[in-house]
C-alpha cells in the first residue's frame, strides 16, 4: 500500500488506533456470532477517524480480529467506499447514473472540474478537495445529487454548488 505524500497528511505515528477505538471495535466484534463480521464496521470506524484506511490501522485490526492483512485488504479493496490512500479534506462525490444524468449531472461535473481545476478521481494540490464520480446514491427523486463527505446535497444547480464551495473556504 502506498503511503501518500499529500500535504494534509499527519505523521505516520498518528495512524494508530487509540485505546478507545480499539475497545470500540472489540465491543463491536463481541456482538456478532463470528467476529469477522466486524471487519466492515471496523473499517468504517477507522475511516471515520483518519479519512482513509492507513496500513498501520489494518495491522492493528488484524490483531483485534485475529486475521491477516491479506484477508483485510482483499475485503477492503472490494468496497469502493474505503480508501487505501488519503482523500481530500472535502470529498465530493457526484452521482453520474441515469436519473441524475437526465437532470443535468454532466453539466455539474463540468462545473466542478472547472471550479476545482481537477478531473474526477483527482485531489487538489493543497489536499483540500477530492472529486469522484459515483453510481446511483439512492436519491434519484431529488436529482442531481452529490455527497460532500457524509452528507447528501440534492436538487443541485451550479449556483448551489458555488454556495456550498464558498461555505467551505
Amino acid at each position, binding site marked *: 500500500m502506498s503511503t501518500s505524500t499529500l500535504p494534509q497528511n499527519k505523521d505516520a505515528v498518528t495512524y494508530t488506533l487509540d485505546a478507545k477505538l480499539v475497545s470500540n471495535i472489540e465491543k463491536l466484534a463481541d456482538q*456478532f456470532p463470528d467476529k469477522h463480521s466486524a471487519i466492515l464496521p471496523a473499517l468504517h470506524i477507522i475511516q471515520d477517524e483518519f479519512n482513509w484506511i492507513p496500513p498501520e490501522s489494518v495491522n492493528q485490526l488484524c490483531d483485534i480480529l485475529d486475521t491477516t492483512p491479506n484477508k483485510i485488504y*482483499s475485503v477492503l479493496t472490494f468496497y469502493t467506499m474505503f480508501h487505501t490512500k488519503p482523500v481530500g479534506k472535502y470529498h465530493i462525490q457526484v452521482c453520474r*447514473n441515469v436519473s441524475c444524468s*437526465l437532470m443535468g449531472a454532466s453539466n455539474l461535473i463540468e462545473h466542478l472540474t472547472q471550479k476545482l481545476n481537477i478531473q474526477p478521481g483527482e485531489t487538489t494540490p493543497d489536499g483540500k478537495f477530492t472529486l469522484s464520480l459515483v453510481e446511483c446514491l*439512492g*436519491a434519484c427523486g431529488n436529482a442531481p445529487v452529490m455527497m460532500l463527505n*457524509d452528507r447528501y446535497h440534492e436538487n443541485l444547480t451550479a449556483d448551489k454548488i458555488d454556495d456550498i464551495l464558498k461555505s467551505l473556504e
Partner: protein
Amino acid sequence: MIEEKKVLTRHADSPGMIDVKNYIKDNGYKGLEKALEKKPLDIVEEVKKSFLRGRGGAGFPTGFKWSFIPTDKTKPHYLICNADEGEPGTFKDRVIMENDPFLLIEGMTIAAYALQADLGFIYIRGEFKWIAEILERAIQDARKVNMLGENIMDKGFDFDLIVMRGAGAYICGEETALIESIEGKRGQPRIKPPFPANSGLYGCPTIVNNVETLASIPFIAEHGAETYKLMGGFQAAGTKLYGISGHVNRPGVYEYPLGTNLKDLIQYAAGGVRNDKKLKAVIPGGLSATILKEDEIDIPMDFDSCVKADTMLGSGGVIVMDEDTPIPEIALATINFYVHESCGQCTPCREGLAKIQQILKILLAGNGTIQDIDTIIKLANTIDGTTLCPLGEAGGAVIRAMIKKFRSEFDALVS
C-alpha cells in the same frame, strides 16, 4: 383517476414517528401483539394467504419463501433485512426507514417470530449513514420498551437486531453477496443451491427480505390476509412504493395499490412530463428493467403484467425520459454502471459487459460501424443464461432492448 393508499407511508408526513412512544400511541405494535398470540406457523400461513410478493425486485412470494425454513430447529435462524437500496432509480426503502423505523422493526420482529429467528440484521447501504443512525436509535428505544431483546412483550420470545452498513458495492444487494458481506468477506454471490433458507448466514437457515416487504407485515398481522388482498389486483396484493424520477413535474415516492397503471402513475402521481415535453421512454422498475417506449406504458404495474410487457416491476423505480433524451447516451451511462459493479466472478459478465461498453464508446465517438451495433446484440445474447447471478444478464439485456427499440438513434451514430 387513481387513488393513493397509504399503508407503508401512513407516517411519512408525521415527523414524530421516530419516537417509539408516538408510534405505539398511533396503533403501532398492534400487529406484533396479535402475532405473538398465534403459533409461528400460523403467521407463515397468513402471509402465504396474503399473496404478498417480495418487493426487493424478484417478486418471490414471501410466505412461500418463509415456509422453506426448517421447522425442527437445530441451529440458530437468522433474518436479514435488505436495505441496500442500490438499484439505480430506487429511493423508496429510505422513506420507510427515515420516517417510520418502527414499522420496519415491528415487521422484522413479527417475521422473526414466524421464522423462529434469534438475531436479525439490517444491511443498509453505506452511504445512508444518517439513516443507519436513525435505525440504531430506534432499536435502542425498542429495547427500552420491551419490544426487542429478551422476553418481548412478556411473551417469552427473544429477538434482537444489528444494523450493518455496506460500503458502496451494488452487488451486495444480491442476497448471497449480502450474506458474504455480513460475514466480513468480499461481496461475491454464492452458487445456489444451497439456498439461504437452508444454509445462509454462518451456514445457518436465513431469510433475506426487502425493507418494503418486511414493512408490509404489520398490516397483514394486524388486519389479516383478506383485508390486505382487498388492495391491489388479482394475485397482486397490497400496496407498492413507486419511486418516480427523471423528466417529470413532481418526482418522488408514491404509494399506490399494486397494479396501478404506469401511464397514470406518471401522469397523475408525478404530474406528467415536465416543460410540456412529450414522453419518449420509461424504465419501469429500476435500471435492470428493460426500457419501454412511449406507446408501451399503458400497463398495470405488477409483477406479471410487467413480465408480459417484456420488462419487470423490479424495485418499482420508474425513470421517465422526455423526447429530447438521447438513448445511446443513456445506454452508455447504463453500461458504465454494470461494468463498474460486476463482481468479476463470471467471465461473460466481466468481459462481455466491458466489451459492450468499449463498443458503445466507439460508437458515441463517431468511429463505429453498423456491425458494431450488431456485435453488441450478439454479446448480450451470449451472456444470457451463463452467469451466477442476474447482474450480468441484466446488463446485457437492458442495452439490447435500448438498441432494438431505438435502433435508428444508434444507426445515426455510424452514418
